[in-house]
């Protein structure tokens, strides 16, 4: 296995919604074990980019190349629907901003956590049970609440539940779409801490979309700044945030409210 292959390589991605261009020539590389923060104001195309990378939207132009954990290179567009669904359910993960979009609210918390394992063919109740317990502990949810419905959980717990549900399949590529917005600040900090621990341990390649520069600085090693569907600046997180070059980045950095 060639360690120099990027986990994800995006070249000249274009996408329009009708006459409205949403992505305009986005290119980026993501390396195994790296967290790339994508920041920018709302409407800049961040979430659309994630949707394209996860295979939920087809780009009008451009190429996405993915190197699997086994070192196999494949173009996203060449995957059949079957392969795509399989990858989405095991090798890749997507964490939604609103955990209610991803969780099955009528199924117990434990069931939610192990759904991917069942999809991957584990049909042993005892094994599923132990795995659910282990992952609930990892995301710091009291195992005694395993059989409760997610509706009885707080917002922060729901988000942790969603993270356990996604990470249980040990994805090699993880997309985080504003994972901490909508949570109060102390919960945010704990969640970010947890995410960093889990992701770094597993050497995942992560794309983190956020409009919160503090979140990006805390998690991401590298930052790409998006505006009107283009990446206007890209570099090491500290470099981009401390010494922004592009006028838009300068504006973004200076508009953070001081405490």
């Amino acid at each position, binding site marked *: 296995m060639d360690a120099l292959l990027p986990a994800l390589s995006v070249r000249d991605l274009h996408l329009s919604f009708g006459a409205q261009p949403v992505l305009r020539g986005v290119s980026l590389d993501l390396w195994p074990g790296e967290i790339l923060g994508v920041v920018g104001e709302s409407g800049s195309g961040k979430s659309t980019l994630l949707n394209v990378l996860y295979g939920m939207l087809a780009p009008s132009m451009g190429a996405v190349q993915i190197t699997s954990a086994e070192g196999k290179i494949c173009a996203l567009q060449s995957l059949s629907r079957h392969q795509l*669904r399989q990858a989405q359910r095991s090798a890749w993960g997507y964490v939604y901003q609103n955990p209610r979009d991803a969780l099955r609210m009528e199924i*117990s918390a434990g069931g939610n956590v192990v759904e991917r394992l069942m999809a991957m063919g584990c049909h042993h109740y005892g094994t599923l049970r132990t795995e659910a317990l282990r992952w609930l502990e990892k995301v710091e949810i009291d195992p005694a609440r395993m059989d409760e419905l997610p509706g009885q959980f707080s917002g922060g717990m729901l988000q942790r539940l969603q993270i356990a549900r996604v990470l249980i399949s040990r994805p090699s590529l993880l997309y985080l779409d504003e994972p901490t917005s909508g949570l109060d600040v102390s919960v945010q900090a704990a969640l970010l801490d947890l995410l960093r621990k889990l992701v770094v341990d597993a050497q995942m390649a992560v794309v983190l979309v956020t409009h919160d520069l503090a979140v990006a600085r805390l998690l991401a090693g590298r930052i790409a700044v998006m505006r009107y569907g283009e990446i206007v600046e890209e570099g090491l997180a500290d470099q981009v945030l401390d010494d922004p070059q592009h006028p838009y980045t300068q504006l973004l950095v200076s508009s953070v409210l001081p405490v």
Partner: protein
Amino acid sequence: MTHYNFAYLDERSKRAIRRSLLKAVAIPGHQIPFASREMPLPYGWGTGGIQVTASIIGSEDVLKVIDQGADDTTNAVSIRQFFESVTAVRTTTRTTEASIIQTRHRIPETPLRAGQILVYQVPMPEPLFKLEPRRTETRVLHALGDYSLMYLQLYDHITRYERIAIGYDYPVLIEGRYLMSPSPIPAYDVPKMHRNPALQLFGAGREKRLYALPPYTRVEPLAFDDYPFAPLQVDMPCSICGATDSYKDEIIVDDKGKRQYLCSDTDYCRGRS
């Protein structure tokens, strides 16, 4: 009755339904859409089963119709009389004598033999419909063979009730490929479907779907390795014939909770007593 074509439906309609049935037999457990006709009875009373029976019945056939195992319930009697009047074929209540058995909610206790056809009336052909209401999405799940949703349901059953608490319409996997609703037969009957020598046809009139199991098809109830398929069964003999190996109806006989158990399959019970 000469005012109607043989078996009520016109020949072209019957042929169209038979074509869909051929497709259904070719892909065991896969739901085939068909142009369900208006029948002279309401949806939910067996319009799907009647259309299937009407399109395969010939003048040499012997028809048996059961509803919940019984030959003498309203639905069974009406459908039997309907076919008597529009086909003039011989009807019977004996499982062994029938060449076509139309059924609602049961499989006869007497084992079927090669050459017989069992026609099921199906209210809801989609096994996933309670978990995923979108037809477009269930079609994708069937195409991808992704049935983790159903396993999720079973998981929650064990978590909540310590067993898979599905008493009827128990989800089955056909030849390791398609998830299928066995129609609302009791879970007790599901093992009878497995490798059955008879041809099994399923018709859902309101939902406009047909599906089929050719003879000797592999039918596996969905379960976990450590929680195998284990349908509940009353541990009481039939109070008429004494059978212990049949599916029972429970009848409350007084206002003090006294109950009696009878074979639900009336023909089987009669044959023993």
